[in-house]
């Protein structure tokens, strides 16, 4: 840790937008030279440096970026159409044409794993975007308005948290029927409570901090305070929680699809692929069929957790995030 933590919360000195800030920035620069302190880095630069020094996080980010690229360009990466049945070649072992063999409908396992990344990553991102929006609306309202509104919203959050979320998700998926949109929405609708609590807590802490009170005393409007002081400091913990949330959503989708309630055939989802390969005859008859999507899930989730850990270091976040 660097010894410069007390100055964490200052705005970046060289503000690229707004010429009015130049005067104060210059004065601050002089003060820095006068006191012989190391040159002040913007919080973002410091965060980036700390992230880059976290080896596992950089590794995770590299893996994740590769997966994102693979899922975007799946049509070019996959050697075959993931839904095409090669009927002369059912349940084939891995060979030079089908690198991971074929499933019982003669579909190329490698191509399906490649396309499966598209399902997993998009479910993760969309589901978490949905619950980030809900969490932000509820958490920020509770934290900023306070009083009775806060009380009601937080009791409601407690209530949703009381339900075993996977059971709730599974039942809703059963009622609404399997489809990728339903999976995204259902995971999104029930995932927000931890994040809402986190956002509210952060806002409550920020409200009491000296520089916010100072800004208020100087006549800063609520809008100004939120944009200039509160939001930048909430970004750290929220980004950590969101990252872990994406991993959680990917695991939830995999579990849901494994139970046959998530993404249905013939679309390729890692959970569905494992589910199809289940049954004791398949377990050792064609291990590549379920080991490859399974290891893909592990790799994706692990990479995301590493990135989350790096962000936690980068933004100096304590505690365990959303608790999900």
């Amino acid at each position, binding site marked *: 840790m660097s010894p410069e933590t007390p100055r964490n919360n200052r705005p970046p000195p060289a503000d690229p937008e707004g010429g009015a800030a130049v005067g104060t920035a210059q004065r601050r620069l002089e003060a820095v030279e006068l006191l012989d302190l190391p040159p002040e880095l913007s919080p973002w630069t410091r965060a980036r440096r700390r992230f880059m020094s976290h080896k596992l996080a950089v590794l995770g980010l590299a893996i994740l970026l590769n997966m994102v690229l693979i899922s975007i360009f799946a049509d070019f990466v996959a050697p075959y159409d993931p839904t095409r049945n090669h009927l002369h070649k059912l349940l084939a072992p891995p060979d030079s044409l089908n690198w991971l063999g074929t499933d019982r409908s003669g579909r190329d396992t490698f191509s399906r794993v490649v396309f499966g990344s598209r399902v997993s990553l998009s479910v993760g991102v969309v589901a978490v975007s949905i619950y980030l929006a809900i969490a932000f609306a509820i958490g920020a309202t509770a934290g900023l308005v306070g009083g009775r509104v806060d009380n009601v919203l937080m009791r409601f959050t407690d209530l949703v948290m009381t339900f075993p979320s996977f059971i709730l998700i*599974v039942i809703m998926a059963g009622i609404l029927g399997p489809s990728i949109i339903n999976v995204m929405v259902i995971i999104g609708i029930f995932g927000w409570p931890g994040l809402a609590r986190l956002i509210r807590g952060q806002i409550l802490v920020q409200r009491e901090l000296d520089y916010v009170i100072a800004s208020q005393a100087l006549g800063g409007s609520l809008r100004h305070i939120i944009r200039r002081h509160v939001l930048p400091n909430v970004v750290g913990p929220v980004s950590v929680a969101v990252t872990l949330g994406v991993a959680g959503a990917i695991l939830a989708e995999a579990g849901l699809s494994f139970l046959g309630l998530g993404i249905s055939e013939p679309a390729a989802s890692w959970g569905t692929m494992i589910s199809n390969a289940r049954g004791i005859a398949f377990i050792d008859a064609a291990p590549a069929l379920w080991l490859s999507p399974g290891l893909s899930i592990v790799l994706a989730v692990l990479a995301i*957790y590493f990135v989350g850990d790096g962000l936690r270091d980068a933004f100096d976040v304590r505690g365990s995030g959303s608790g999900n």
Partner: protein
Amino acid sequence: MTQYITRRILISIPLLFGISIITFIIINMAPGDPLTALLDPEDQISLSVRDIEAMRRELGLDRPGPVRYVIWLKEAVTGNLGFSYQTKRPVVEMVLDKLPVSLSLMGVALALASSIGVMFGVISALKQYSVIDYSLSVISFFMISIPQFFFALSGMLIFAVWLGWLPVFGMWTAGEDPELWDLARHAILPISALMLQDIAVYMRYTRASMLDTLSAEYVLTARAKGLSEALVLWKHVFRNALVPLVTILGLSLPALIGGALIIETIFSWPGVGALAYDALRQRDYPVQMAVLLMGATAVLAANLLADVAYAWVDPRVRHA
């Protein structure tokens, strides 16, 4: 203390109502007639359409949602959560039948996971930044990244199919006298899969809590006055670091219940999880609702219990 418990219970009552309201809303989203779910199927056969219409009016099923909720709640309080579409038995009875089997599985998993997790968390914190600490943290990342069902299938492949050391699924070997050893052999794989994530969670919380306590000033004081390191750890660090972990009990229960659904299904372990999975496949909504309602109530109760236990050990909590 009594005052604290009373206050905590009073806070839980509105939550209990909330649980029932949400469950009721979900029941009503499910396709199907609530009347057929509520009536004993024996009676249904002998009733004419007109009788059923009359009964619908009498029960208030033609009335608006909130009124129906009150009627449903009255039945629920007396223990009638409806009848299974499939077996035609009262769903409460079906769940209670399977409960001991699930509780034993989950209880052992939770007990093992918390002791293993706390142990490694303590080691990790005492050896902070060492190779052991670093390896344990990487291992814990793997533990939370492996889907339980994938871990279960891999365990099955290695230990049951390839090595043949453990049975593939079920709770007992068919045709043999039930023996404890037989049960334990069947339980090893499901319990391992079930506790995987919890070990990591307990480990991380323990490590953080230990590090917090180790840097506390009273620990410095204890060392300064010349206490042996063992005494400092036992009397000052462990007590203060490990007590807050009680609260994770309530927090880890929802994931454990969700995990039981998948694990019991994979290993054909005849508990509530497997019952819920069958109900999902057969669209047996009354059973699903009973599981949801009872699961949420269990989490609420566990949170209450954990809070009370915490307050009992730590007086600062109950006077806050």
